[in-house]
């Protein structure tokens, strides 16, 4: 098991980087959301790998909390996306820029 840990961490880093890239380059808010989820789960993977490595519980518990936070975040986010869609707008993050100065 132990020899797999570097692999898990590499996978986690790769997932995180892909997620970050997705957040920055994609324009569909749904895809952006999925990218954020990818990043969160990359974080979870790293947390659990280290928890397993050190035989402590903190990482696993923290991963559970991250999952809960991710769920709440999706609830709010999807509600926003639905609200935008209902107002008849195109779903494009670059179009949604009224908040600029």
């Amino acid at each position, binding site marked *: 098991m132990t020899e797999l840990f570097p692999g898990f961490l590499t996978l986690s880093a790769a997932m995180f980087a892909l997620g970050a890239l997705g957040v920055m380059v994609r324009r569909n808010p749904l895809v*952006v959301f999925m990218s954020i989820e990818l990043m969160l789960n990359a974080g979870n993977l790293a947390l659990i790998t280290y928890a397993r490595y050190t*035989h402590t519980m903190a990482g696993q518990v923290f991963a559970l909390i991250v999952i809960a936070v991710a769920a709440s975040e999706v609830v709010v986010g999807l509600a926003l996306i639905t609200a935008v869609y209902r107002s008849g707008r195109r779903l494009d993050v670059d179009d949604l820029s009224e908040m600029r100065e």
Partner: protein
Amino acid sequence: MNPTFTLVLSAVVLGLPTAGFLINALTAGKLPRRVITLLGPGVVLGSFVATVILLVELLAQRAAARGSTVVFWHWLNLSVGPAGGAVARSGFNANFTVRIDPLAVLMMLVITGIGGLIHVYSVGYMAEDPGYNRFFAYMNLFITSMLLLVMSDNLIFLIIGWSMVAFASYALIAFWYQRPAAVAAGRKAFVTQVIGDVGLVLGAFLIFLNLRGSNGHLLHTVDLQTIFANVGPGAHFHNGLGPMGGGLVTLIGILLFLGAAAKSAQWPLHTWLPDAMEGPTPVSALIHAATMVTAGVYLIARFHPIYQQAPVAAGIVAAVGIGTALMAAIIGCTQFDIKRVIAYSTMSQIGLMIFAVGVGAYSAGMFQFFTHACFKALLFLAAGNVIHALQDEQDIRSMGGLSTRMKLTFGAFLVGALALSGIPLFAGWFSKEELLSSGLALGPAVPWLWVIGVSVNVLTSFYIFRVVWRAFRGQPATSRAATAHEAQPVMLVPVLLLALLAAVVGFLNIDFFGFHPVTVFSAFLQPVLGTPAARASDGIQALALVIGTVLSGGGLALAWAVYGRKVIAPDLISRRLPWLYQLSLQKFYWDQIYDVTLVRPTLACAAAVREALEPRFFDRLVDGVKEGVTTLADDLRTMQTGFFRDYALIFFVCAVIGLVVLGLRLA
């Protein structure tokens, strides 16, 4: 016992109602009605079949070997780790395990068997309700939660089941959410349950934190069998929960009983049960008579090793039980709502069970639970037939003369009433007399407790036959009562089956080859609950039996004299002892007491905070924050481009810079 077979059967028992709930809930009524009708009761009856197979399998074992633990999955397991890693801190795990032993199987039989009959009955009772599928979804959820509660062999899952039961009960009491009274009753039940949950959870924490194994080390376990094996005083000084001079284990016993009292509607957490009658009648039969309210009895019977170490806590349990039994029986004599009479009767009968498990007569308490589940579900369902026939009329003053038009329902209700009053050869007679006489030998105060118990029985047969005479005999009081007609077969068959059970299940406890009235049932439960520590001599038991039976019959005769022959005026008590009548009619004023001592001070406190703190402190705080933010925003807004990717880029670049700086400093 074949472990794989047991595993599969336990999974079926738990899984079927869960599946029923999920399907009914997720399809949100899109399924054809016929499918819902088959699915709702079907899963519960399937569960019942699996339980019966488990029972047969259990009975095939030697008595001592009855009981096996099934691990569904491993969870939070810290005891195994690869060699060479860091040292595992403890042997903690929270595996999802179920325990299949006589006590659990008895509870499962009642939950799925009686529950299944009530589901079938609901097909008729709820037929015209727009929330047909929602009703079955909640009912299946309740069955799942209750099964989880009684099967779990792990404190964590027991508490999960315990709380899910409270939620399902809330959802079902407040099922008719358009009625403000139903919603208020559901909320009251849930709040009361949560108070009890706090007690249970604190008790569980104390067990977890303080239990020591035979080598004196803290165990930190949530596994029930490990807890029970180590809870007693052992060879080692620091064993079990003893080192704090018994105070700790007493505290645990009291905290657990707080949970049990909330579930089982015992004083001081009893006020929710009568209000819960706002729910549909099958709900009252399933939850507030047969299963959920007996969870407290189960909890104390299951945790009896702890109560055996804590005589003070057990004494409190017994005293509260018998006190609640007497109080509820007195209240039951003056109520006019047919369901409320039966609800107070439930509270009273459960008080007797709690008394039994408090004095250590665990199998007597469980036997009373078993017979009570049969005849009380019967009474509720028969009352449901009456209510249905009278278009939701629940007041016995508006009934009368129903025995001629609803012959079968009347017969069933009569069987239930006879069983409840403890008339010989009906189920209640066996369990009640065993319950009361098994407590006789246990201490100097017990004869007095027996006297109270017998008075409860007298009152019980009085109030239930008061209902029989006022609702079913005499002249119809209203035109609706005069035109009532018998219920449809789908509602009648479960009632008649339950009537059959209420008439015969008492014989389960008879050893036909000896005098002792108590053997078969307690022998079945003996591997879990042990044998009672002491028992009265046969002579005293026989005497107690005869006196108790005669007095119960006396209560029946009194009801007949008052409401049947009318030789005694019904208002005798209200004229001669108005305070007693008012005390009973107003339910001992507990609702008013709680209103004055708890509800109003809380509301007043909230109002005071709103008046005093809100405008002067919180509003200013919020205003100040608003102004601060506005000022700051004026300065910062030039950074806002409105493009999401810019923000993300800034964020990531900063994060990378931060990480690099951190890495350099660490390196």
